C-alpha cells in the first residue's frame, strides 16, 4: 500500500503544477474550456457519489446544476453580491433541495428513481421561464465576468480559471475524505447490500437522503461556477440534454471513482468538439461511435481502465502486490 502512495503524491503534485501553469500558455478560449472541464468534474463527482457509490440513479442532475447557476446569477444580478459568496449559498440550497427530493425518492428503486429525477430535469427549465420576474424568462440573465482582485495581473478568464480550479481542489479533497472514511464505506455498503447495511447499524434511509443532498450540493456549486465563467444563464442551457451529458461523463469516466469525474468531464467537454471537427453533418453519430468505443474498451470507465493498466504494469515487476490490487471501486452497480 505505502509503496503506491509516493508515486501517487508525486503524480498529484505535478498535475497541480501543470494546472497552475495552463493560464500562462493557453489562449483565453482554451482556458475557458478547461474551466468548463473543472466545473463538469465537480458536477460529475457529485453524481458519482449518488449513482456510482450509493447506487441511486439520477437522470436529472441538470436540475441541480440549473438551480445553482440561477441562485448565483440572481444574487449577482439583483443584489450585487460577489460571486464568491454565491457559491456556498448555491451549495447549501441544493443540499437542502436534494435532501428533500431524496426523502420521497427513497421509495423508488433503479429505473423508477431514474424516471423521477428525469421529470425533475424536464420541469426545471419551464419553472425557470415561469418565474420571469426573477429569472429573465427565456432571455436569461446576462452577467459580467469578475476582474481579478488585489491588482493581480490576470485577465477575467485567467482569474476565473484559478477560482474554478481552487474550488475543484477543495471539493475533491472533501469528497475524497468523505468517500474513503467511515461514511464512504457505509455509502458503498448500502449500494452493495442494503439489508446487510441496515443490519450493521447504518440508517440507510437517512444516509441515502444525505447522499442525495451532498450530491446535489456538488452539482449546484458547479452550476454556480458556470454562471460566472460563462457570464450568462438561460433556461435552455439546462435542459434534459445536460442531465444526460453529466450521466455520460459519469459512466465514461468511471462510476464509483473520484479521478473518473475528471476523465468524464474531459470527455464531455472535448469529444463533442472533435466529433464536430470530424463531421459537420453528423457530429452526434461520431460522438456515439466514441461513446460505444470507450465503453467497449473500458467497461469500468476511463479510471477503471487506467487502474487495470497500472496493475498490469506493476504486477510484472512486483508479482505479489498485484494480487490484492484488483480494482474494487471500478465495479458498476447492479
Amino acid at each position, binding site marked *: 500500500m505505502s509503496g503506491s502512495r509516493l508515486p501517487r503524491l508525486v503524480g498529484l503534485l505535478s498535475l497541480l503544477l501543470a494546472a497552475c501553469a495552463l493560464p500562462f500558455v493557453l489562449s483565453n478560449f482554451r482556458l475557458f474550456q478547461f474551466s468548463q472541464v473543472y466545473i463538469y468534474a465537480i458536477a460529475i463527482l457529485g453524481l458519482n457519489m449518488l449513482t456510482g457509490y450509493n447506487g441511486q440513479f439520477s437522470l436529472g442532475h441538470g436540475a441541480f446544476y440549473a438551480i445553482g447557476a440561477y441562485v448565483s446569477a440572481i444574487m449577482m444580478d439583483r443584489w450585487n453580491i460577489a460571486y464568491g459568496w454565491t457559491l456556498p449559498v448555491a451549495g447549501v440550497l441544493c443540499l437542502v433541495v436534494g435532501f428533500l427530493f431524496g426523502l420521497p425518492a427513497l421509495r423508488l428503486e433503479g429505473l423508477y428513481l431514474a424516471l423521477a429525477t428525469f421529470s425533475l430535469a424536464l420541469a426545471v427549465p419551464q419553472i425557470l421561464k415561469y418565474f420571469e420576474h426573477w429569472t429573465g424568462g427565456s432571455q436569461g440573465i446576462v452577467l459580467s465576468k469578475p476582474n481579478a482582485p488585489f491588482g493581480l495581473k490576470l485577465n477575467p478568464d485567467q482569474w476565473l480559471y484559478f477560482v474554478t480550479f481552487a474550488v475543484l481542489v477543495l471539493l475533491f479533497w472533501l469528497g475524497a*475524505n*468523505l468517500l474513503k*472514511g*467511515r461514511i464512504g464505506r457505509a455509502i*458503498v455498503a448500502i449500494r452493495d447490500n442494503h*439489508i446487510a447495511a441496515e*443490519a450493521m*447499524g447504518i440508517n440507510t434511509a437517512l444516509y441515502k437522503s444525505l447522499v442525495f443532498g451532498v450530491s446535489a450540493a456538488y452539482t449546484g456549486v458547479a452550476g454556480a461556477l458556470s454562471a460566472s465563467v460563462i457570464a450568462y444563464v438561460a433556461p435552455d442551457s439546462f435542459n434534459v440534454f445536460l442531465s444526460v451529458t453529466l450521466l455520460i461523463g459519469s459512466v465514461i469516466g468511471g462510476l464509483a471513482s473520484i479521478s473518473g469525474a475528471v476523465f468524464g468531464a474531459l470527455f464531455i467537454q472535448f469529444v463533442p468538439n472533435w466529433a464536430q471537427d470530424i463531421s459537420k453533418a453528423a457530429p452526434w453519430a461520431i460522438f456515439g461511435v466514441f461513446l460505444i468505443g470507450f465503453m467497449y474498451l473500458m467497461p469500468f470507465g476511463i479510471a477503471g481502465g487506467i487502474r487495470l493498466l497500472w496493475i498490469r504494469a506493476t504486477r510484472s515487476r512486483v508479482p505479489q502486490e498485484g494480487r*490484492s490490487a*484488483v480494482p474494487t471501486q471500478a465495479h458498476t452497480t447492479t
Partner: protein
Amino acid sequence: MPILSVHGVTVRFGGIIALDGVSFDIEPRQIVGLIGPNGAGKTTLFNCLSRLYIAAAGTVSFEGAPLLTQPAHRIAGLGIGRTFQNLALFPTQTVLQNVMVGAHCRTSSDFLSNALKLGWVAREEAACRAHAEELLDFLDLGLVAHHPAAGLPFATLKRVELARALASRPKLLLLDEPAGGLNHEEVGTLGALIQRIRTERGLTILLVEHHMSLVMQVSDKVVVLDFGRKIAEGTPAEVRRNPEVIKAYLGSEAA
C-alpha cells in the same frame, strides 16, 4: 435476568405461519443451539430479532428492554450482532472494509467531520482499523484482508461474516449456520472457536446449525423448532432423547 427473552413470537407470510408462538430465554454467556428441520423457522426468528421481519404477535426483550419497537438499524448498536445463512457481505468492498463496516455502530464520525478529516476522526478510523485487523488475525483472514469479498470461497466468506459481526462488539451473537461449506475437520475447529469467543470475549451466542455434533458439543441448551413451533427445549442430552424431536427429524428425512 435473561439477556434475551422471546415470548410468543408469531410471524406469518400470507398463509404460511413461519413462527407460531415461540418462547424461550437465553441467559448471559450461554451458548444456545437453535435447531429444526429445513423451513422450521430458524432464520425467520433471526430476522425477527434483527427487525428485518415484522412479528404479528409476541414480544422480545433484550437486557430487559423491549426489542420489537426498535428500528432495524438500531439493533447492532444495542449489542446484537449476526451472520447470515446465505451470506450478506458487501461484494465490492475488501474483506477489511467489510469488517470495518461492522464497526459502524461503534463509531460516530458524521458527514461533515469525515469530509474535513478532523483529528478525532482520523484517530477513530485508526482504532477501528486496528480492531478490524486484530479480528482478521483472530479468524485467520489476514492474507485476504485487501481482497474484495466477491470471489472468495464460501467458507472464507462465512468467517468474514463472523469477523464483521464481532467488529460491532456485540453482547449477543446470532450465528446462522456458521459451519456451511466446512468439512468434518473444520467443523471441529469451528466448535472450539465458538467456545473461545464465548470465554475470551464474554459473549452470549444463539447458534443455528444442521451439524448436530457441533450443536450438541458446544450448546448449554438447545431449542428445537418444527413447522414454526417450539417442540422441545433442554440440555443436549435431554433434547436428543426427546421423542418429538426424533420424530421431527426422522419425518423430515423420510420426506
